[in-house]
């Protein structure tokens, strides 16, 4: 099957996740070989996802862990020996 650009855009997300059928995957790859536009869209989307997964992009606030464990310690201490449930 010959894919046009619009079809390819619809598949880019699944293509990145490696969840398209092998046959469709082949069609997409054949399209990408000659289409600069779709290749650029794929690359840019992929790079955005790399940046997204980078732990420095979305961080927890400073001191989050310390405060959390202090609160948990309070909770653990006040818990009666038998447990609540």
């Amino acid at each position: 099957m010959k894919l046009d650009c619009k079809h390819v855009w619809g598949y880019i997300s699944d293509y990145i996740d490696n969840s398209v059928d092998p046959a469709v995957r082949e069609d997409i790859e054949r399209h990408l070989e000659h289409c600069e536009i779709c290749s650029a869209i794929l690359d840019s989307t992929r790079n955005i996802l790399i940046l997204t997964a980078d732990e420095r992009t979305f961080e927890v606030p400073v001191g989050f862990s310390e405060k959390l464990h202090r609160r948990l310690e309070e909770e653990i201490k006040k818990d009666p020996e038998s447990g609540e449930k």
Partner: protein
Amino acid sequence: MCGDSAAHFFMMTTATHNEAQTIARILAGEKELFHDLIRPYERMVYLTVFAMLKNETEAEDAAQDAFVNAYRYLASFRAESKFSTWLTMIAINQARQKLRRDKKVGFESIEETIEDNDGEFTPAFLTDWREVPLEALERKELREALQKAVTELPDKYRQVFSLRDIQGLSIQETSEALNMNPGLVKIRLRRARIMLQKSLVPFLKNTPPAYRRFGRAQ
């Protein structure tokens, strides 16, 4: 079983792989182990609630509450789902309650399944992407632009995007945590990704590689 609990404690700090055993021991009275049990998931839970509340302070409180609830209800955890998925569900619940209390509409429309036409979700073109090297991703402004773009996503797309792409859950885990059909997860994910591509591409385009190293006033 070995009775030396101090030795056990130190063993358990590294043994995150055996959660079921740790959980059993916490329930049997070794409550301090809860600290270690949840350590690998602090970021995940925080980001889950942050994606919904969009506010650092509120997210911090909600994340703490979620962990406290996880501690209180640990006995009700069933090993049918992964512990991380169970925690995520508690976190989502916590944030939903907060939104409801504050009367923010939030995620109430999550059940709707008929999605808008895909036509409006069209990526942006850029022909010079290959000229922007991967190292450009190190730029602080790009990170900030991404953070902003994610915050501006419609709620239902941001939630799926956060679980899957920020926190790295699988499609299956995302759909379990949200109690949502995997097909719908994929549709929302696709749209979220396209929207982000669209909002970040102009930003990349307007930053010629030659000027990357110099601070620009926006």
